């Protein structure tokens, strides 16, 4: 089945991102296709490469990056939600006159249209939130 996953909460405070990650991993292991993972609301914070969790804890951003890169996943961070919360890639940072960017490897920033497109193109959309 062709699936898309929506992550509406940030890392660590809520379990949503962990659950979405475990779900995505399990779906891939079962042979399903993941069309897109879309990060919205505080979920955009999953895509910041500047998080530094304690060493004996899971690294949520790194988990997503690794799963994304080894399965060629389309990990999309919503641009409007990301700008509100300070998640920027190089071109967004430049455009808004900021001195740094923080988007993690394997993630890309794009518009909300990518969420609707995922709904149209996928057999199922699974939303992980609070």
């Amino acid at each position, binding site marked *: 089945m062709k699936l898309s996953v*929506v992550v*509406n909460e940030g890392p660590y405070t809520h379990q949503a991102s962990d659950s979405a990650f475990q779900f995505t991993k399990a779906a891939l292991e079962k042979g399903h296709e993941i069309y897109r993972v879309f990060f*919205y*609301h505080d979920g955009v914070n999953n895509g910041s490469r500047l998080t530094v969790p304690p060493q004996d804890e899971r690294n949520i951003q790194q988990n997503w990056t690794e799963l994304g890169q080894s399965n060629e996943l389309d990990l999309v961070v919503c*641009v*409007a*939600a990301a700008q*509100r919360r300070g998640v920027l890639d190089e*071109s*967004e940072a430049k455009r808004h006159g900021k001195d740094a960017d923080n988007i993690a490897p394997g993630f890309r*920033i*794009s*518009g*909300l*249209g*990518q*969420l*609707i*497109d995922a*709904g*149209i*193109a996928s057999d199922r*959309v699974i*939303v992980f*939130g609070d």
Partner: protein
Amino acid sequence: MSMEEPENTHPDVIKKFMYVNRRAPYGTVYALETLEVVLIGAAFDQDVSLAFLDDGVFQIVKGQDTTQIGMKNFSPTFRALGDYEVSKLYVEKESLEERGLAPDDLLEITYEDEDDDWAEKPSIRIVDRTELTKIMAAQDVILSF
């Protein structure tokens, strides 16, 4: 890259999309950011509806005044949804009653029915919990934020 017009990679597919609003308009950003999805999503010409239940019914209460909390009152945007061809706003009857609200407390939201000589009709439809369950079951995509 990011600011370009949303691209619909499947122009022939029309699905039933439902946005479920469960949260109060202020206190968290969910309601505002959900409305942003609805407005962007309108460009994709899908069969769109909104559901308001739990505290989500407060989003469309009329007479909202946010001047004292330093936030933008975005409730007038709901009245513009008809212009985006979003004309089905299902409001759960029990959620209204549980909060002491009546249909008269809600914004007047209308759309122009192109199949009926552009007659102006109310977009809000009060449905009970059982009815809403059936409407939800008939959807292709349910986005709940």
